[in-house]
């Protein structure tokens, strides 16, 4: 742990530095591959939609010593139309999933199952979803998604800079796309709980990006007045400085989610908890990745196009293109030079500090 803390210190001063922005093409390529894979998975396999979206009924019977053949026989006796999926959950639960049924038909299924296993119909957990219901909630989820993106875009543009808002939104769309792709690829069920998970992730992925961008903004506030660092270098320093923080916030956020996933999948088998936390889990991981590897490089790229930033880049290049030996040193130590500068500037303030520490 303290090793990590020490790393935090070195990253902060720029002694240890990962070049996130310079190698952006590598990350873009990596994400590009993921996005293409997602698109392929989506178009070939499509999403595995739960009955909430396509309509249908699900009956869950809980009884010790329950067997699949019995359940099959019970369901077959009702002669209901459409495909029926019967699966075992854990040791004593069976879930029967059918196509959309009329009230009469679903009552028949309940009665047949209750009679077969000798339980009351009220003890069967039933979920019946009308065929047009899915369209309704899909539409609502999409409204929610677009509404969210627009409101957040406006808010971040006000709170930060318009270009930061654009970069953040691109990163969010990237996350949604990859998460959806993973769902298509693996074939996880998509339920309303999954959709909630997605929407929450959007907020979360932005949380991470906000933390990084806040530091970027701080590092670049007075950058054009000097000629020490280009925008990209300052942004890269910011990513490095917030790396430990990003790691910690993501890990802390993942811990409760992982515990929901573990308990939800382990104890309950299927349902709201599992669906929700799985989406959160996958989304959190991509969200952390994108705020570091995608959002900041895009922001740097957008800002580097500005004339002021290009002029700055030229000044920095001119400064560093002195003797050949100095070039290497200057790039490597430019962050620590700022540290020197600040330390010198804040020299007097170091005095009371030592007084406090006696």
């Amino acid at each position: 742990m303290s090793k990590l803390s020490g790393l935090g210190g070195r990253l902060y001063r720029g002694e240890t530095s990962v070049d996130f922005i310079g190698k952006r093409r590598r990350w873009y390529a990596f994400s590009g591959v993921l996005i293409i894979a997602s698109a392929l998975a989506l178009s070939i396999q499509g999403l595995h939609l739960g009955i909430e979206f396509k309509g249908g009924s699900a009956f869950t019977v809980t009884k010790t010593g329950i067997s699949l053949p019995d359940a099959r026989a019970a369901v077959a006796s009702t002669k209901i139309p459409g495909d029926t999926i019967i699966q075992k959950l854990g040791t004593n639960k069976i879930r029967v999933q059918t196509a959309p049924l009329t009230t009469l038909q679903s009552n028949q299924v309940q009665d047949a199952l209750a009679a077969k296993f000798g339980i009351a119909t009220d003890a069967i957990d039933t979920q019946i979803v009308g065929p047009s219901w899915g369209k309704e909630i899909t539409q609502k989820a999409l409204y929610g998604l677009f509404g969210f993106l627009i409101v957040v875009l406006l808010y971040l543009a006000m709170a930060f800079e318009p270009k930061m808002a654009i970069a953040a939104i691109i990163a969010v769309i990237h996350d949604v796309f990859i998460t959806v792709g993973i769902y298509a690829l693996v074939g996880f069920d998509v339920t309303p709980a999954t959709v909630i998970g997605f929407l929450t992730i959007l907020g979360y992925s932005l949380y991470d990006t906000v933390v990084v961008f806040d530091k970027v903004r701080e590092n670049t506030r007075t950058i054009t007045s000097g000629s020490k660092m280009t925008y990209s270098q300052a942004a890269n320093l910011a990513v490095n400085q917030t790396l430990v923080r990003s790691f910690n916030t993501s890990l802390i956020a993942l811990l409760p989610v992982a515990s929901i996933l573990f308990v939800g999948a382990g104890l309950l088998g299927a349902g709201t908890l599992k669906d929700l936390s799985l989406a959160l889990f996958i989304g959190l991981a991509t969200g952390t990745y994108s705020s570091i590897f995608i959002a900041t490089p895009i922001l740097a790229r957008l800002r580097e196009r500005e004339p002021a930033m290009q002029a700055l880049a030229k000044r920095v290049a001119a400064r560093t293109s002195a003797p050949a030996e100095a070039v290497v040193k200057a790039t490597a130590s430019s962050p620590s030079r700022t540290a020197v500068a600040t330390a010198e500037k804040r020299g007097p303030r170091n005095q009371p500090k030592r007084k406090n520490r006696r």
Partner: protein
Amino acid sequence: MSTSAQSRTPKTASRPGRTLAILGVVLVALLSLVFIQGATSVKLGLDLRGGTSVTLQPRIAAGTSGTVTSAAIDQAVSIIRQRVNSLGVAESEVTAQGSGANRQIVISVPGDTGRRVVDLVGQTAELRFRQVLVSGAPGATAVTGTAATPPPGVSAAINAQYAALDCTKAVNRQGTGTDRADQPIVACDRTGTSKFILAPAEVLGQDVSKASAAINQTTGSGWYVLLTFNDSGTTKFGALTTRVTKLAAPQNEVAIVLDGLVVSAPRINEAITAGNAEITGNFTQTDATDLSNVLKYGALPLAFDRGEVQQISPTLGSDQLHAGLLAGFIGLGLVLLYSLLYYRGLGVVSVGSLLIAGSITYMLFLLFGKWIGFTLTLAGIAGAIVAIGITADSFIVYFERIRDEVREGRSLRSAVETGWIRARRTIIVADFVSMIASALLYIFAVGGVRGFAFTLGLTTLIDLFVVFVFTKPIVTVLAKRKFYNSGHPLSGLSPKNLGVVITTPNAVKEA
């Protein structure tokens, strides 16, 4: 920035006591509210204790044209509520969720009433005008004496039904939308104050074209309802009123029947052949508006598509509750453990903050259950668990800021203040984004999703509150203690921990 930070340092640093006092007052106030209100347990949703929930999507009934209006949905909710209440199950709820005319009606009934609920709520409620044949006190009567001889136009069977009907019982006032228009029926008054035998319907809801509440302009008091029929309605209502106005009471009354229940049974004073009727009485404004709404709804009745039905057995409910709580405890435990391991002494602050945030959340759950009928669902529990992470993230942002400031060469006491000014912004922006997400989820979603959005939004607000009135001031107080500002190895602020090598200017020059 640095100058303003400097000037603010003494001010913010001197306030921790006061801020902590505010927190204390809030906590005590919440706690006493909980006791005063007698809110001792969190209301659990149906998915945690078993029950049936039905979500209905209103649409225009077949054979009529028009659009679903918000007022029609309100009317439908009250009709369905009437039906559900007749089941006599405590804590049943009928609500409309969503916004405006695009709302769904959500019915939740605890316990094992599954099928009855589903059958009960889906029927379309119709409005009909029926002539009153017999009316009387609401209680059941014996079929003897005068009651044994049915009045003209009433069969013996109907008469017996009428005698047996007890309108004082809620179960008999359920209205099912199954009354046949072409048959005479027995019916209760909506409020259960009288009962009726009614003739077959002669005028239907679809025959109404307009209805509105109005006030007598000359006297300025006395509310009444204006009713306008369409062409076929004008003819039928004209014929009905022409016939009954000559008869003796109560047969000169025409009952307005919605969903099998009599809403009003005005006496017909004259033949109304022009298609415009005025219904007068001892109406208050509310009475008149209610009646006109009933008539408007009748003109354009709603049918319901069964969107989703969920029946959860009490066993599954308690399983889900236990799983949710277990997940919460494990999640909280892991987060606490990690903060203690990583942040050592500062971790204690985040443990305290999370515990305070947790107790505020719990007390608000109790109070909201009392005030706005907040119920905790499985999705809501999940929202609260996810919020643990978001809350802890705020502390991390702040702690890392403090450490950055110390690395910049500040003393701990000033790092705590300047770090706060910077972290505060990040925390506010990030929490605000989280709140936008939960607000939109709440607006657009139905059912369980709303529970998730509500708890997530609430806990984000609590997070902001706790960071401002507890975490920050307590860190200020602790920063004055030797254990922390001397950089004790266990304080989480030791030089080794921070990787601080810039302790002297010499070290800087080396780098």
